[in-house]
């Protein structure tokens, strides 16, 4: 073996590592898409941004979500509160605090003389002063699992910053919200909440001091051990897939399902839908999920049934990230390259940095929705940041709708139903490369483009039985 062979072998090994890392960086596509829909839907509802042709559907979705949170409080009227504090003519009122073994929901509204929409800037402007008392046991569990104690101490706010959702106006208040905290460790006590920052519709911060002491009593949840599972063959490369359902916890704030799925190939993720219990649909809570458990969890709005007969769901979509490697060496731009019988045009522009636009010149017959590119520069560096794309939505009936941004695409009600979203134009810049200070990078044009992954969705309909009880059980 000579020098050249050794270096070639090392190069192959480096490629293999890259490949493994790409596979390892498996995106939780399903959850990130869901989170994005949630965040954007809240932004839209709050800011009044109009998306004319589908505003109603997003609105309806938001109203249902809001109603779900309100029903949790309505069904537990003993946890309604009426505590308000005023500072600078702005009043914050806590309307309720519902706690169980799964979550803690804090309901509040803000009112001001101007009536402008205000909300708590809860990442920076909300502190739970007695968090260490409320979450002592949770801290111990996380430290036991290997997290450094200092780190847990300094990140206590994650426990009470688990999510927030706007609520629809009711007859008494317009600026309403629910905040989700992780479940408290204490069975009952008082939460000491200090609010120091609010945010208006323009994103401007209003400083002040609103201090509350809100009492709580934690309701116990009921655990049903499921110990069931399914093994399926997915209609993609005859891939084996298994899912195990461990347990279901039913509390006043949520019904939480614990599960664990396993694939024999990490290029695929599945999405679950149509959960039912005793043939009644279970509605997913977007703010849900456990912050500390080793299993995957999904939270539903709470359900009450005398006896559970059956729980079912189905796998409705496969999200596939297929690894490919196509290399294109580029001498000059613009250039058209061929891929899968279609053409891609790559254009280059330079202002203060290099930017590239990759346009798909045809999509009608292809089965992938979009491609992931790697761009190599003179020095062999290969990091690009994607800063936007344009595309279109293909409805289940084949009709095409334009979507000009990822937000619009994600918010489209058909996107919620897993309509295919095609990226037609993708914009990249070398911004990320410039941000990596250690590279001493001062701008080089790209010389090579590689297509690394195809993204596609595949609709499926695989029913899964989570629990089935017979009348004698």
């Amino acid at each position, binding site marked *: 073996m000579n020098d050249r062979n*050794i270096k070639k072998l090392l190069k192959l*090994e480096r490629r293999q590592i890259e490949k493994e890392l790409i596979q390892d960086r498996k995106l939780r596509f399903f959850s990130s898409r869901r989170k994005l829909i949630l965040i954007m839907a809240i932004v839209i509802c709050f800011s009044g941004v109009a998306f004319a042709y589908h505003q109603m559907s997003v609105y309806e979705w938001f109203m249902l979500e809001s109603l779900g949170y309100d029903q949790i409080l309505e069904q537990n009227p003993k946890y309604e509160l009426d505590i308000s504090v005023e500072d600078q003519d702005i009043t914050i009122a806590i309307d309720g605090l519902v706690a169980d073994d799964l979550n803690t929901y804090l309901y509040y509204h803000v009112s001001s003389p101007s009536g402008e929409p205000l909300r708590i800037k809860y990442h920076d402007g909300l502190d739970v002063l007695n968090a260490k008392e409320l979450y002592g046991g949770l801290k111990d569990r996380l430290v036991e699992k290997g997290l450094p104690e200092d780190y847990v101490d300094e990140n206590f706010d994650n426990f009470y910053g688990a999510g927030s959702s706007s609520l629809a106006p009711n007859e008494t208040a317009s600026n309403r919200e629910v905040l989700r905290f992780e479940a408290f460790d204490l069975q009952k006590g008082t939460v000491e909440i200090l609010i120091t920052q609010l945010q208006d519709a323009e994103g401007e911060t209003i400083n002040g001091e609103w201090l509350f002491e809100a009492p709580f009593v934690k309701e116990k949840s009921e655990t049903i051990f499921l110990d069931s599972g399914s093994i399926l063959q997915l209609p993609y490369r005859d891939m084996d897939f298994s899912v195990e359902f461990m347990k279901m916890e039913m509390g006043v704030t949520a019904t939480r399902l614990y599960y664990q799925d396993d694939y024999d190939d990490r290029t695929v993720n599945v999405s679950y839908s149509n959960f039912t219990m005793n043939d009644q649909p279970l509605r997913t809570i977007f703010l849900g999920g456990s912050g500390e458990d080793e299993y995957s969890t999904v939270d539903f709005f709470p359900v009450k049934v005398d006896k559970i007969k059956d729980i079912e769901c189905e796998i409705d979509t496969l999200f596939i990230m297929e690894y490919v490697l196509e290399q294109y060496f580029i001498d000059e731009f613009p250039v058209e390259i061929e891929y899968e019988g279609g053409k891609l045009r790559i254009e280059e522009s330079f202002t203060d940095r290099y930017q590239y636009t990759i346009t798909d010149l045809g999509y009608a017959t292809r089965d992938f929705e979009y491609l992931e590119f790697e761009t190599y520069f003179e020095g062999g560096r290969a990091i690009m940041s994607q800063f936007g794309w344009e595309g279109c939505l293909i409805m289940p009936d084949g009709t095409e709708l334009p979507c000009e941004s990822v937000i619009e695409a994600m918010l489209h009600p058909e996107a919620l139903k897993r309509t295919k979203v095609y990226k037609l134009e993708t914009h990249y810049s070398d911004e990320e490369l410039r941000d990596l200070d250690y590279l001493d990078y001062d701008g080089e044009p790209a010389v090579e483009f590689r297509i690394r992954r195809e993204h596609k969705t595949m609709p499926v309909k695989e029913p899964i039985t989570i629990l089935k009880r017979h009348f004698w059980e």
Partner: protein
Amino acid sequence: MEKQYEKYSKQLYRIAYSYLRHKENAEDALQAAYEKAIKNQDQLTDQKKLRSWLIRIVINECNQNHRIRKRQMEIGQKVALNSNTLMDADYVQSIELKEALLLLSEEERNLISLKYLLGYKQKEIGAILDLPLGTVKSRLSRSLGKLKEIMGGDENE
């Protein structure tokens, strides 16, 4: 410190993974490295060297992990080699390369890994391993020679 660690976390994970080639082990090594970094943050006097310092801690952690796992890997790979007669030549060479890397000294393995498996420049390697550029060049060349020798190379080629 967490913010800085977070900023470099992808890069540090890449390094840990390249060394250990095992997701959970790489995550464990990062976790241990993180704890050490927090514990010893007073030792970092020049903030500009934070990145190199963190990389060095991760590499040390991975090397420790290597020492523990070296024997296990040797056994495991021999079993794999014996049990799978249809492996292609690339795969066999890849295993041989991993074994050969384990036979290098820690410094030699660090040099080879940083240069050829992670793509760092010699200047950057110098900063990470706290070595002058000239030393990086000479030791890198020597390390490559040793790797070649282990893999059955002829020094006179």
